[in-house]
């Protein structure tokens, strides 16, 4: 069974993998952050790919080296929402950057992971740390790339990318609220451009307001056109739906919580995601 202690020796950012101890002065560890986010029994999950959380089977054999195909990635929240892929061709590969950061490589053809059924309220927050090293060619921006999305209510998640100081948006459709789309939608990424590591957080604050935080700063705050409740049954990592993939992506961390976040929690979470992905918060 995965434990936070075995992952990080109890010190969240003391490891060389985590930007040299971002939280050291605050005395915050991964365990204390998880306790803060999920300690009262909140539903959701925290998924940090690595050799201590990813298995080549359904929970028995840990991945031992980069390149291993991931059957299961453990949820560290304590909720047991482990992400699974039983189909071999659809499994992402656990990889490691030159700097030692672990991530899951999704091939953009058929890879994805899914949790089991998750009961989640209409209030929820989600975050991901993701990048891609493959240029997004013209014509590939017609659909959102669901780095983390709610299956059963597809298209809930959409993405804003921070690149070189510029906010670049995939066309967004639903982010847990109907009709949260349109004006901030379209992007055309430069062909032959690569995207650096990115941190973003999409947080549903109330039933009528949604904020996107990108690399630590508020990028967009909008009022939803509809407040229809959101009750996804399953969380899916990878492209937004299995039948319409087109963009290889690398996921360094994913997070979902059935509830809003305090500013303090959000900042800590952003720093965790930044540390996991090598991104620099603005």
């Amino acid at each position: 069974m995965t434990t936070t202690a075995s992952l990080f020796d109890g010190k969240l950012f003391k490891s060389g993998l985590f930007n040299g101890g971002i939280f050291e002065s605050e005395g915050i560890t991964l365990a204390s952050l998880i306790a803060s986010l999920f300690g009262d029994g909140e539903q959701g999950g925290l998924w940090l790919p690595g050799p201590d959380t990813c298995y080549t089977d359904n929970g028995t054999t840990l991945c031992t080296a980069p390149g291993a195909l991931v059957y299961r990635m453990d949820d560290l929240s304590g909720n047991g929402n482990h992400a699974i892929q039983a189909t071999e061709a659809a499994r992402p590969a656990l990889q490691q950057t030159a700097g030692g950061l672990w991530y899951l490589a999704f091939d953009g053809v058929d890879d994805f992971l899914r949790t089991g059924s998750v009961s989640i309220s209409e209030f929820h927050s989600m975050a991901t740390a993701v990048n891609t090293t493959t240029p997004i060619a013209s014509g590939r921006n017609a659909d959102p790339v669901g780095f983390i999305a709610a299956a059963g209510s597809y298209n809930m998640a959409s993405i804003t990318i921070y690149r070189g100081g510029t906010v670049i948006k995939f066309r967004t459709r639903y982010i847990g609220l109907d009709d949260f789309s349109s004006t901030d939608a379209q992007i055309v990424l430069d062909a032959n451009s690569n995207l650096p590591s990115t941190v973003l957080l999409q947080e549903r604050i109330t039933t009528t307001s949604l904020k996107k935080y990108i690399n630590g700063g508020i990028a967009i705050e909008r009022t939803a056109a509809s407040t229809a409740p959101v009750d996804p049954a399953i969380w899916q990592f990878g492209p937004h739906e299995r039948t319409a993939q087109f963009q290889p992506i690398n996921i360094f961390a994913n997070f979902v919580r059935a509830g809003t976040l305090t500013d303090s929690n959000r900042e800590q979470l952003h720093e965790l995601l930044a540390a996991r992905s090598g991104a620099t918060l603005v």
Partner: protein
Amino acid sequence: MSISALVPIAHLLAANAALEAAGHGPENFSVPAYAGTGATHAALHCWDSPEFLSALQAIPQVTILSGLVNGIDLDSIARTEKIIEDAGAQWGSESPALPNSGTVTAGMLYQFDEALWYVIQSFSRSTYNAHPNTYPALIRRVRNPQAVESWQQPIDQYDAYKALNPFTGQPDQATHNGETWYVTGVDGSGNNVWEPGVFGWTIVGQEPGPSETWVDTGATITSQAGQLFYVSLPIDGLGLTAGQAIRIGPTLETTFVQVWPGTTMLMQINPYVAATAGMKVWKWA
């Protein structure tokens, strides 16, 4: 180095079953590839896995692209694109957006309004620039075999609805007139080309109750007259009503229309099925 593989649609179910039996999980081939009006192949991509490669190589109908290609280690997208295009098919997710001007080419797939569209004959989008639904003779929507979409009249075997969808292992489904339907009847070639509600479709959740089944009418086909059939007993005594589902022999499902005017044992059916003398006539009741 990674692996891309392709299998013709006719062998999709068997290939996925073989891979699952070899311990590689279900539905490995999951990416539709299209040629013409429908999906003709299914593709997959897998990161490096010698065991999986061996399992693929054991399936004779599967085409595999692994290793270097002209000295280049293709990425997952390029590798999958190549194996699909080498088979003369197109990857729907990689199709370009339908332009608003210029010429679109016959045989090409385009993306528009969250669907794929197949160009039947080349035309100018500068001239014909309304919604593609407006020009059914020029361009038509391609069915996504993994999605439940609005029903459209099939034009050939490739986009006809099937009782067994090889991508899902279930009957094809479609929405029509506010309901979701699934295929329950096909012609002798395995195709359903009828509008839901006419023949061969059942509304999801409204399956016939357990009390309904095929009942032997006691009559048999004795001979054929055009597309009408003579039966061995007076039809009025068989308890048939207009529109009632009937089955001739073990598989030929159709509907009863009427006793041909002026006769007592000549039966009109719709759609036509190729029944032969001696076949039993069953009714759904």
